[in-house]
């Protein structure tokens, strides 16, 4: 996103500051630009409350793929992150939560051993500490450079969701543009409440793969958040401005009456 390019949706040109002020959305039409992980955490978590965990996990090269280490270093430099997801604890409007935010900048948000492990740890931490888990997803899918190990992260994260579910701790996902492949087909689709950002592309197969299969152009809006809402796979489409309060409300709405009684 550059400051002087027109909005891809409505064409209006806004300066960088006003777009930033609108949480990286177009002040005219509400178009959602992609947002960096640090910006999301700054917006979502109460000031100073975010404490990162598992920050130092780094991928090895499990299938000895030529060039993977270099690729990781490049990604690290480009995204200024050590991996495609950041996990931590924080409070949101005063309520404790575990927060995981993915980055598309880091190798297309692909899920390898580290993403799988960090996401799983976040889910298990939520189960253990009885804190709601919130995950912001964006991903091109499995990280093929880790071969079969990347595929298995789908099973691993889904198993961790089951653990959280057994602990009866709520789990919310916010699907961001784009969320596809192995992330869609695992922890992203298993939340108690699934929120999506407006216009986000959400699917298993990517649009080009599907077009290759059916040998025709996809219909307008196919796999977008609005399409997924209509098809029954998304609970709520929420603009970036609404998300924090929505998540805070959802946390309150998921306190069981038993717990409420015990607490009150």
């Amino acid at each position, binding site marked *: 996103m550059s400051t002087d390019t027109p909005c891809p949706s409505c064409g209006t040109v806004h300066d960088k500051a006003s777009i930033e002020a609108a949480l990286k959305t177009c002040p005219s039409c509400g178009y959602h630009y992609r947002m960096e992980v640090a910006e999301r955490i700054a917006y979502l978590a109460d000031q100073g409350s975010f404490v990162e965990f*598992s920050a*130092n*996990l*780094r*991928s*090895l*090269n*499990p*299938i*000895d*793929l*030529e060039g993977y280490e270099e690729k990781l270093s490049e990604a690290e430099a480009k995204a200024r992150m050590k991996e495609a997801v950041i996990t931590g604890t924080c409070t949101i409007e005063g309520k404790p939560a575990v927060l995981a935010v993915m980055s598309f900048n880091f190798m297309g948000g692909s899920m*390898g*051993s*580290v993403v*799988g*492990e960090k996401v*799983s740890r976040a889910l298990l931490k939520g189960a253990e500490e009885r804190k709601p888990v919130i995950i912001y997803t964006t991903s091109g899918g*499995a990280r*093929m*450079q*880790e*071969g*079969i*190990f*990347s*595929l*298995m*992260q*789908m*099973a*691993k994260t*889904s*198993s961790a*969701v*089951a*653990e959280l*579910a*057994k602990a009866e701790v709520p789990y919310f996902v916010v699907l961001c543009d784009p969320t596809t*492949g*192995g992330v*869609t*087909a*695992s922890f*992203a*689709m*298993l939340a108690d409440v699934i929120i999506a950002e407006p216009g986000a592309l959400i*699917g*298993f*197969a990517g649009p080009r*793969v*599907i077009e*290759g*299969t*059916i040998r025709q152009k*996809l219909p307008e809006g*196919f796999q977008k958040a609005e399409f997924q809402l209509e*098809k*029954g*796979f998304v609970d709520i489409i929420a603009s970036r401005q609404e998300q924090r309060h929505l998540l805070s409300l959802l946390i309150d709405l998921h306190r069981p009456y038993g717990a409420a009684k015990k607490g009150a």
Partner: protein
Amino acid sequence: MSHTTSLTKKIEELKKLAEASGLDVSDEIALLESKVKAASKTEMAWRRVELARHPDRPYALDYITRIFDNFIELHGDRYFADDAAIVGGLAFLNGQPVTIIANQKGRTLKENMKRNHGMANPEGYRKALRLAKEAEKFHRPIITFVDTSGAYPGLGAEERGIGEAIARNLMEFSQLKTPIISIIIGEGGSGGALGISVGDKIYMLENAVYSVISPEGCASILLRDASRAKDAAAMLRITSQDLLEFKIINGIIQEPEGGAHTDPDATAMAIKKVLVRDLQDLCNRPPAVLVRYRNQKIRKIGHWNENEE
């Protein structure tokens, strides 16, 4: 004789000649040998891909009819359709009731229309889950046969949530309180294969492959050259030997020389032997222990380091 085998022979001859001549070419020879070894790996991986996709290779029902008695196919997901790309049902294994769930490819054009070349839609995964839950209810072990190039990347599959369907299976299968054994009998293609293969024991037929992406897909993305599928196949480490080495699978089931299709009966008996042995063991474990082990195993998969800075 394969290219690399003849090359290896030539190098041996070369070595002897060099020794006889007293010329030191050991460095050059070593380099040659490592190149040939890599080429040989590529050749072997690709040979397995070819065997896994061989048009005569036995498909799930070929094994099911040979291994089990009284197979009764059950149909439908109870939501939208019956998906013939995944078959499921009940049968006896040496007198013990089991639930079977399997990818099924077609052998004829007509059958492949019906079975969508073994590429399942969401309905297939939802049928699998329904049958798996029914198995759990009656404490009946589950045996899955995996053989798909992947879930179907079609319009309807996306519309009806193929991602959700696979995700749900991964989570639910991880928690099923009944033994699950999966056998990769041909192609283990990505999430489409994983969607019916989370279990207590995973085996591969010797020439089966199991991969996060097809060699062709990998070649066109990673190597930016779709024609280099053979190289990608080797790079991706997708053979039964690779997966055993990675400890992703519990064992390799040997195929007859020349591949499973040269002797389906023998291959089926080899599978049966493993199933009978393992089921005896798994059925003796309390379901809670089974589930705990299954998830501990799943959650350990991956390679990373975690150094404090």
